[in-house]
Structure formats: C-alpha cells, structure tokens
C-alpha cells in the first residue's frame, strides 16, 4: 500500500481522532480541574483533622472574654493611679472614713530582686501609703470594700492607732499594693497631701502617677 493510499484510507479517521484529541480530550485533560480537586480534597482532609483535633481540646476554664475582662480589671494594662485614687476616696466616703494622705512609695517589677514579693512575669506593682482615720467599723468597712472591688489590692501593712484627741477614732496608716501589666520604670517622687486634708475622689493625678488632692 502506497503512502498516498495510507493517507486516503487513514486520513479521515486520523483527522477525526485529531479533532477528538484537540477538542474532546486535551482541553479537559489540561484544565487542571482534577489537580485542583485533588489539592482541595487533600487540604480539606487536613483541615477536617485539625478542626476535629481542635474540638477535642480540653475545655477552657470559663468564657475567655469574661476571664480576660476580670483579669484586666484586677491587673490593668495601665497603672490607672488616678482611677485608684478616686476609688479610694469613694470607698472611704462610703465607709465613713477619711483619707488624710495617699502617696506612692515604691514601684517593683517582676525582675526586681528587692521587691516585697516575687511578681508573676510581666507584672509590676505599685506600693502606696494611705493615711486614714475613722471609727473601727468605718476603717474595717473601708478595708473590706477596698479588697473586694474588681481591682486587686493587697494590704501589706495596717497600723492602727487610737486618736488621742478624739475618743473612738482610729488613725490608720496603710500600705497597699496595686498591680499593672505595664512595664514601669520610675514614678515621680511621692507627694504628701496636706495633713487632715480630705481626699477628693474626683481629684487625682490624671496622668496616673498618683498623688494627693
């Protein structure tokens, strides 16, 4: 059989096959949809496993946002000394006690070897001195409220002395610590309030450095 005969005989079928190859076979084969599907299935399988594993994780202790909110209230990200001064004034007034003076004493960080107590990582403490007076019940009520409000306050010193000039009145010098997650370096020197000056809850150092009215 001559080449021409081969062409005549096989030409049309080959042309049809070429058409089929070019139109019917090649585009679907080269579309990449199969590879896309394989990739997507593999990725989906992996993600399903990860999601299943995530669902199997032990349950956390309480809703995260509430716990974070409570923790942030107890140990705020900023010193918030002015807010604390107002709070002290409000609690004292509510308890029937009077605040004579209040001033920051020391600042400690978690890396401070001289700190009163070892602090958790990323925590700083501010020690404040508070001078108050009032009846025993007023002072104890003040201390209770001070320790049971959202911000964490640790009382390190209570020095009660009877007021010699006013029977039934006690003078209390307190040292308390409040905490913050801010990295504190140095605070301004303590400012002593005027003796017997009432603390204005609304007046505090707006810059959070503490102080007396």
């Amino acid at each position, binding site marked *: 059989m001559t080449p021409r*005969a081969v062409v*005549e*005989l*096989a*030409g*049309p*079928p080959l*042309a*049809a*096959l070429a058409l*089929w190859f070019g*139109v*019917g076979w090649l*585009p*679907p084969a080269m*579309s990449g*949809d199969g590879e*896309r*599907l394989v990739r*997507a*299935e593999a990725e*989906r399988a992996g*993600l399903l496993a*990860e*999601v299943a594993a*995530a*669902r199997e*994780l032990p*349950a*956390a*202790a*309480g*809703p*995260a*946002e509430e*716990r*974070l909110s*409570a*923790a*942030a209230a107890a*140990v705020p990200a900023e010193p918030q000394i002015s807010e604390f001064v107002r709070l002290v004034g409000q609690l004292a007034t509510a308890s029937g006690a009077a605040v004579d003076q209040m001033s920051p004493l020391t600042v400690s960080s978690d890396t401070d070897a001289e700190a*009163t*107590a070892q*602090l*958790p990582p990323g925590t700083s403490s501010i020690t404040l001195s508070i001078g108050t007076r009032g009846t*025993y019940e007023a002072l*104890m009520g003040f*201390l209770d409220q001070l*320790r049971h409000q959202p911000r*964490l306050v*640790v*009382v*390190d*010193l*209570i*020095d*009660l*002395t*009877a007021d010699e000039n006013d029977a039934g009145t006690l003078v209390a010098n307190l040292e308390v610590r409040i*905490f913050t997650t801010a990295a504190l370096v140095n605070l301004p020197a303590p400012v002593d309030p005027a003796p017997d000056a009432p603390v204005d809850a609304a007046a505090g150092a707006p810059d959070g450095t503490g102080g007396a009215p």
Partner: protein
Amino acid sequence: MVGVAYDDWSLRGVERRRPGRSVAGRRDEVLAAGAVELDGGVVEHGEIVDVERFAAALRSLWQQAGFATRRVVLGLDARAAVIRRVELPALPPAEMAQAAAYDIGELLSYPVEEALVSAVELDAGGRTDGSAIQVVILAVRQGAVVDLGRAARLAGLHPAATELVPAALVAAIGADRGLAPGSLGVVVELGAGSTGVVVHDRGGLLFSRVITAGLGTGAASLSDELEMELALLAGYAGGSAGSAPGGSTRVPGLATVVEGVRRTLHYYITELDDRPLDRIVLCGAQSGVGGLALELAETFPDAAVLRHEQPAWPAAGGDPHAYDDAASVALFGAAGRPDLRRFDLVPAPERARRSTRSRLAVGAAVTVALAPLLVADASLRWAERGETARESAVAEAHVVDLQGELATFQDAQARQAEADRASARVEALRLDDYGLPTVVRRMAEAMPADTFLVSLRVQRSRTGEAPTGWSGPPPPGVFNATGVAGSLNGVGRWLDGVQTLPLVSGLWLSQSAHGPYGPSEQVAEVFTVDGAITDRAEPVAVPPPAAEVQAP
C-alpha cells in the same frame, strides 16, 4: 440508464428503465432510443480516433433522442478487443493477471504494457485437473477505454461503466436460456457493415469475432480484408473462400455472411472447443433479412436458429433490432449479471480514482462509525470536567469555610490561653495576700470586755523580719499590739484569745506595766505583744468553674 454502442459509421443509444435483479427473461421497458451517423475518421476499427468529434456526436445523440438521464453505460466495440481462451495453472490473482498478460501479449498489435488485460475463469469445462484452469483473456488497448470515457465526460455525461458489446449481447438477450449443458451458444449480430459472431457458454463469453461484411448497403461483396480472413479460415474449415453453402443469392452478401459465420464457428469448434452448437440467436438491424435463418439452419443442422425478441419499444423508436447492441449494453451495464463473471474494463487512471474514492469512502465510513464514539467520549470528558470543576469549587469553598472555622478555633484557643495566663497572674498575686484586715478583725474580736488596744500594727514581713524570740525561717507576717487592760488577768485572756487563732503564732509579751493611763489617769495594765502571722487569714479564692469553649 442509457446504453451506447458504436461502430465505424454510427452511434446508437437506448434508454431503459432500470431493471430488476435479473436481466434474463425480463422485457424491460425501453424509454427512448436514437442514433446518429459518425463522420469518417471519428472511429476506425472500433477505436475512437477523434475524441472531440465523438463527444460532439454523443451530444447530438442526446439532443436527438431526448434521453432523460446523463448516466451512461459505454459499450466498447468488439473490434477493439482481443479475446483468447487459454488454459493456465491455478495461480493467485496477481500472478494470474501477469500470466494472462504474457499469454495474450503475442496477439496484440501494440505493447502489452498499453493493454488493459482482464481474465475470467470459466466455470463450465474449467478445471481439467487440480493444477490448471480454463480462462478467457480479454485485452483492450487502455487508451481506447480511456478515450471512450473521456469523450463521454466531454459530452457532459456520467459514465457508470464500460462493457464489451459481445459480452453484453450474450448476457442481455437471453441467449443462454435453456441452453443444453455441455453445449455452446452463438449470438450473431448482423449489422449493415459488419457481422459479429459471439460464442458463449450459458452467457459466459468464450469467443468473439467481427466479420467486416454485412447485409447492408455497400457490403454485398466481400472486402479484401474479409477475403483474406476467409482464406485463412479456409485452412481450418476445409473449404475455399467464397464458396457459400446452399448457394443462396436472394440477398446480396447473404452467402458471404453465412460463409463467414460458418468458417468462424468451424474454426472455433475445430481448434478451440469441440462441444456441439446448441443454439444460434440472431440479432441486429439485419437479423430479419429473409433467408438468413434458413441458410444458417441448413449450415448448422444440429443447432436451433432463433431471432432475438425485442423488448417493449416506443412507437417512434424506429427498427428496434438496430439497437440490440445498445439496448444490451444498457441492460447489462445497469443490472449486471451476478451469475456471470465480467471482464474488468476499468482503465488504470479510473481504477486509481475508484481506489481513491473507495479508500476515502472506507475512511469516511470508519470516521462516521468512530464519530459517535468520539463525540460521546468527548461529551463525557467535558461533562466530567464540568463535574470536577464543580466538585473542586465545592471542595475549595469547604476549605475556605474550614480555614475560617479553624482560625476561629485558634483565635478562641489563643484567647483562652491569654485568659489562662491573665487568670494565673491574678491568682498568683492573690496567693501573696495574707488577709491582714481579717487578722486585725480576729484580734479585735478576741479582745475581752475590759481590754482594748491602743495600737495595732499588722504587716507583711520584710525580708528577714521576725518577731522577738522567733526562731526559724521568717514568717510571712508580723504584728505588734499595744493594749490596755484592767488587770493582768485581762491581758492573759486577750493573749489566750489571740493565741487560739490558727494564723497567729509566736506571741511574745514584750512589756506589761501597771500604772495610770489616759487623761483620767486610771490605773491599768498597759502591755505590748509581738507575734508572727503564719498563715492566710482567708482561704484563697477558688477559680470559677470551667466552661467549655463555645464552638463558633
């Protein structure tokens, strides 16, 4: 279908209705017939010399006869062909063709390479043994067939086939019907200027000869050529040229024609085939000449002499016997005879064209057969592609959803971890709170009625700070109290009360003095006590119960 036959002087055509399967025995209807004269020099000795003029004659024939179709079967004049019956060994078809060409080549007046050679095996009296077969070989100058087809196409016709006129005659006029087995049949076509003698075996062509003598005008006397032929044949027939048996002279040339037929058949029977003659069928324009049948019957007393019956003929068609050859060509070419083996008169170029068409047809058929499969396959592939694309899109969308869900989980876990750290920080700080106000309250509550405290200092102990008389590691806290009691007994009760507190230890009465106290100078016991605070005054706050992380 129109059948066309020609000789050197005229061109004839007959249009027949397409017949059924069998040709023999059918009186198929003739639709039209016509004839035109050919000028000299158009056809010579059965071969077309001037193709253009022959084509013009064909066009004239179509105009004159008014044929309704342009499909034509071309009848090749017997004089253009050389026929020989030989015995050949049984060979494959290709080798058989070569052997046939070699065998008949010596009879041709032109190179055998220019011949179109076709061999037909005889089924009757064929194989004499297992190694030899009887074949009839036909040789035609290929140019004659090509020119005939070219002339037809020039005339705007569509040649369907080319048939040898003698073969068409014996097949179409039913000369083989009723032929006795083992005998021979003869068809004698009587024209105006020539007489054809055809020997057949039940329709299979065995021998053909054209005698250049007829019963028409100008053929009354023997031509020089015929004289020479008859002289040659005389040697086989044992007679002398021109001595017609019977001595009939009623029709000019009759004796000559009868003598030519007699000598031709005598030659054939004597030299080539000794089977008896069973039947002689007369056809052609001059087949009705009076005395002809009788003369032949007397010459061949063992054979029946018949005249061919004409099919239904149109009223204005002229003498139907004048068209016997063309009508036979039309019928044979159109219907064929499946029971007869035909000579293959397809020239090489046409054969190549037909082969090309055949191969293209096969290729097209394969393509057509293949096309549905390919289309179906392609459709499936496209459908699968669409389905795959949809599945991919769904899977990718699911992946995006899962990524979002996982990110939400991870965010929630990160927030939980952050909350855990923050809570742990707060709890660690709470552990450092020893509840000093509660210590103060407990100490106050332990105070007897006649005793009161003047001062009380409770503090978290500094590094190394310890109450008086304390041994061991420094306690978490220390206290110092100064009180006034009505008596030492009151001091003792207070100490007893404080000592029972679980968080207080190491009480040390550092001073107790009896004397006046206060503005009223009332005599009392003023005492000072140191001590250590060893434990928390309040339980550590228990963390809130765990709550599950809510899935987003």
